[in-house]
């Protein structure tokens, strides 16, 4: 169980910036499957950027923390329920920032002095949680199973967890102790609950390069190559991931990898929530957002309800 989860199924939902751009398909599919598994998501009012991994350099420590402070103040205005996000970077920053602000009196005073400029303050004891942790700890894999109308029989899935969804918080009390750092199982469990086959995938927590892959792709192509090749060698039809940046990086750089290394990879990279939407018999486009993957999976699309 999560440390101090308020045991409700209503959450304040923080979508994050990529939900309006590169990871629209995570957002659409999460919002579609949430009510199916008993999650009520109320969007965080007028949310702002979390600061990602570069806000600290770009804006300074306190301004960057204050971005998180503003979101928390807005969440406090919405009630005591836990805050949940499906984005790894939003989770890392907002969860980590929240715990820091709660414990560090001086930091909290600074954040609140800045927030006062817009008549906001944060003095609550909210919990900020990752969607996958909530599904593991509050919902349970059996609930996923119970919603499956269209099992993904024969679909081989490489569960690519990446970094910040589990590191550095998945094993901590505040992070809900929901899985291990070295060999997390939750993503494979999600796929199997959907009726798919989770293949052996030993690079599941490797790094895709994160924002370095965006700024300096030539430095990190070899990291993505390794992930793609491991999935292909394992016989996977698709790679499944919970992380917005992993999804985009591993998908969009396959062309560059092919060009640089003379390979010919074209493996689809989807979100776990897209798999759920298909398995729940929901609409291929409106709910599973399969048309938003730039490398499309014919096999998955053939299984989806049109």
């Amino acid at each position, binding site marked *: 169980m999560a440390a101090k989860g308020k045991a409700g199924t209503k959450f304040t939902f923080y979508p994050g*910036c*990529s939900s*309006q*751009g*590169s*990871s*629209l*398909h995570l957002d659409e599919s999460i919002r579609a499957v949430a009510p199916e598994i008993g999650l009520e998501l109320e969007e965080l009012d*007028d*949310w*702002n*950027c979390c600061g*990602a*991994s*570069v*806000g*600290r*350099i*770009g*804006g*300074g*420590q*306190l*301004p960057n*923390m*204050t*971005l998180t402070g*503003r979101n928390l103040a807005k969440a406090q205005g919405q009630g005591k329920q836990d805050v949940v996000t499906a984005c790894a970077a939003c989770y890392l920053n907002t969860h980590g920032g929240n715990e820091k602000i709660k414990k560090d009196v001086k930091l909290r005073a*600074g*954040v609140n*002095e*800045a*927030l*006062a*400029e*817009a008549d*906001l303050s944060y003095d609550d004891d909210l919990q900020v949680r990752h969607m996958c942790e909530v599904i593991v700890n509050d919902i349970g894999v059996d609930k996923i199973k119970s919603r499956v109308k269209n099992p993904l029989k024969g679909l081989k899935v490489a569960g690519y967890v990446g*970094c*910040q969804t589990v*590191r*550095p918080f998945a*094993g901590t009390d505040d992070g809900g102790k929901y899985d291990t*750092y070295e060999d997390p199982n939750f993503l494979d469990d999600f796929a199997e609950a959907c009726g798919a086959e989770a293949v052996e995938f030993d690079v599941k*927590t*490797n*790094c895709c*390069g*994160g*924002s*370095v892959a965006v*700024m*300096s792709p030539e*430095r*990190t192509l070899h*990291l993505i190559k390794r992930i793609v090749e491991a999935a292909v060698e394992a016989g996977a039809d698709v790679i499944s991931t919970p992380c917005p940046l992993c999804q985009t990086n591993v998908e*969009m750089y396959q062309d560059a990898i092919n060009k640089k290394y003379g390979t010919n990879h074209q493996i689809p990279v989807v979100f776990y929530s897209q798999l759920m939407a298909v398995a729940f018999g929901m609409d291929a486009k409106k709910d599973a957002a399969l*048309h*938003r*993957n*730039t490398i499309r999976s014919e096999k998955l699309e053939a299984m989806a309800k049109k």
Partner: protein
Amino acid sequence: MTAPDAARKYDLGFARWVRDNVDGGDKLSMCMQCGVCSGSCPIGTQMDYGPRKLFMMIRAGMKEEVMTSNTMWSCTSCYRCVVRCPRGVPVTYILQDLAAKSVELGYANPNDNTRFSKSFWWSAKTWGRTDERLVTARYYFSFGLKEGMRRSLDNLKIAYCMIKAGRMHLGMPHKVKDKKGLQAILKKAAEIEQRESGS
């Protein structure tokens, strides 16, 4: 390690400065030089020095080399080192704060990361949200017009695919409703930070 060089200025107060001023620096004394961090690092081979070596250099007072190294700029924030370190050293946090301090103290030259961070923060403080399209464009053109064009052309196919999939937002940037409030908050936060660092 490089042999001690009589001509080189070692700053033996540097380790103390790191301990007192760098986020997580107070845990640096826990490091037992096992090398698990460097061995786990996905990008360690591209670093001037891996985290283990960098931490030893901090102890040795090699301020100049530490502050101008590419180590902290290479870090992808994968947090592998943090969860594996047997001594609980918050490696990633230390590197991130060293990076920030190296900019503040004038050691860092503009590099990919500082340029990208600047573009990113422009979007965050102007709109309250990240506009991936504008952040990328500003980043590319921060290298100048020619390089900006080259990078844009290099990524034309990706941009085309993203637009086709509806994943590149076109039109006015998404923004927070209370832009004024957000900007006032961030301005104030920067002032407080300035004030505190001066005291």
